């Protein structure tokens, strides 16, 4: 009995150690963001005189609210667009048989292994061609390269699991494929859509290279680029306090989202990975 107690205690200690390691950097970002002025340079685990000055500076001196709005608009549009395209593609992949289906499916998976730099100059050309440089539409468009393959795959695996009887019944009632997908499958797939949408949202929210390359002005930048290029009040100080405040601002909603939907997210990750 005693050894079992010791084992539980040991495991709990290990558990706590791992949790500390995982959470500490975020905790330290919060602590740093609450330090004002030169107090930021004191490396201690607790702010001596916590204040919100850094948050005020980020929101007022930088167009950071605008950056958040940009990120939000881009990520939402990417989710809607990639889910819309993926649902129909998934229907074709999951519910029909046609020549070259497997090959096509694997080609699409292959797209998700493209290094982003490998398409950078070509994408840049297209962005220029459509006159989308320094426009959020260029980001929505280019993010399809990593959200689409993944949403198509996950949706296909969910689509396959839907019972064939429902579909047959609908066809008996004279429904065409369009009606079947939009009226019958879509409501059934709602949980899967939420899961996949969330993953696509996070991927779009976090993207950096395209956002760095296709936007120019501070007003069009998304959050990751804004944080990477943040500038301080004067040339001679590193605005670490502001950077940490900005980091906390963008991370908190994401963490909240992830925690609320954690069961779904894990299901989506495993569907995308294990069944893929």
């Amino acid at each position, binding site marked *: 009995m005693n050894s079992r107690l010791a084992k539980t205690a040991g495991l709990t200690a290990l558990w706590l150690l791992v949790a500390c390691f995982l959470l500490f950097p975020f905790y330290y970002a919060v602590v740093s963001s609450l330090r004002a002025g030169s107090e930021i340079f004191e490396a201690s685990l607790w702010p001596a005189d916590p204040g919100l000055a850094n948050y005020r500076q980020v929101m007022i001196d930088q167009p950071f609210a605008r950056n958040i709005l940009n990120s939000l*608009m881009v990520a*939402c*549009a990417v989710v*809607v*667009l990639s*889910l*819309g395209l993926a649902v129909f593609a998934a229907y074709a992949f999951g519910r029909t048989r046609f020549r070259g289906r497997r090959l096509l499916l694997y080609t699409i998976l292959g797209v998700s292994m493209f290094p982003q730099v490998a398409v950078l100059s070509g994408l*840049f050309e297209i*962005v*220029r061609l459509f006159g989308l*440089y*320094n*426009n*959020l*539409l260029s980001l*929505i468009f280019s993010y399809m390269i990593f959200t689409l393959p993944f949403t198509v795959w996950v949706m296909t695996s969910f689509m396959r699991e839907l019972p064939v009887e429902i579909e047959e019944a609908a066809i008996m009632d004279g429904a065409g494929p369009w009606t079947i997908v*939009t009226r019958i499958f*879509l*409501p059934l797939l*709602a949980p899967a859509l939420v899961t996949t949408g969330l993953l696509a949202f996070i991927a779009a929210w976090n993207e950096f290279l395209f956002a760095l*390359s296709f936007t*120019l*002005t*501070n007003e*069009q930048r998304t959050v990751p680029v804004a944080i990477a*290029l943040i*500038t*301080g*009040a*004067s*040339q*001679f100080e590193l605005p670490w306090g502001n950077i940490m405040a900005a980091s906390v601002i963008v991370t908190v909603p994401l963490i909240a989202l992830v925690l609320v939907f954690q069961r779904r997210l894990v299901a989506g990750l495993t569907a995308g990975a294990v069944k893929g």
Partner: protein
Amino acid sequence: MFGAWRRLALAIGLPLALAGSGPAAAQGANISIACGALGMELTLCREAAQRWARQTGNRVSIVNTPNSSSDRFSLFVQLLSSQSADIDVLQIDVVWSGMLASHLADLEGDLGPRVDAMFPALARNNRVKDKLVAVPWFIDAGVLFYRKDLLAKYGFEPPQTWDELTRIAAAIQNAEREAGNDRMWGYVFQGKAYEGLTCNVLEWVSSYGGGTFLSTDREITAQNPQARAALSRAASWIGTITPQGVLNYDEEASRGVFQTGNAVFMRNWPYAWALAQGEDSPVRDKVGVIALPHGPEGESAAALGGWQLAVSRYSRHREEAIDLVRYLTSAQVQKERAIRGAYNPTLTALYEDEEVIEANPFFATLYPSFENAVPRPARQAGARYNQVSDAIWRASYGVLKGDRTPRSALERLTDELDRIAYRARWR
């Protein structure tokens, strides 16, 4: 379900479409200018640009650019190569003229005579293939800062050669450390792997008589005994009179050490003078500025730096943009910037202006450094300068870090320059 998505899509799409279109132009042109990222630099630029706008009935908008100059360069390259009209007037580094030349408007007809009244090295730098690509706005050159009080205390004269500097720095550093000042170092400079290191290396090698790595007719001259001697000398400082940490120092980090009173000598740009003389500076009135030392056989060499204003070839309001550049580089604005922000004017006549000299007595001292400054091999490298500079600082960094001997580093540099020459079809 789908209806909800569609409504959401509409709700998202609408503001996006609006964001894309931008405000319609009112009367007068709207000139966007990218100058400085923050602080005094930004304030001075904004005030002057707005004054111009009020006088001419146009409007200006200041585009925020990243503070790091390599990030800023990437931004400009992408913008210009996409032929975007988003920025009309750009503030560019002296070494960017050749790299951006094909995208910049020719200013010869409008501002040629004015540029002729500036430092000749700067004027030469901006005439690329018979086109005046930019107008110099303020000039910089590497100089040696030293602690007047410490040199006097131990009875030394300011050094003329690098060997003297090494001897004096070691002597004062040891004496001060024995007196209890543990954190005293002899010499600090910019040793981080970035453009600043290229400037330092160029000054060492050039002042040893070792050339500029790439001669004016694009001959690769990196491998020579003087260059090896200069790099050996520099490598000998690390860990003796220079802290190991210098390998991560940029201008500000080295100024931090010097200004807190922990270094006898420092290589930096002139901006450090005004700050060292600031009210709360621990070394106020204890600092002297002279030309950088030289090697046994060479002459002092200061890397030429500074920023200039250019007009994008893709600007939709070229006339107004050129007029803004004309105003900002005028004697009146340069004088204001010199007095308020200690920016070194590019118009040589301003160095005889009493008000300017009164505000910045050290300008007179700096004048010869500007006059004799050594340009980085930007002119000969043209569009390839960034690559050349990257190769130079990486090779030198390896030597300072102790990973490579000067000989092997310069061998590799020669090899890399040769690769660049091959790709650029210089031969």
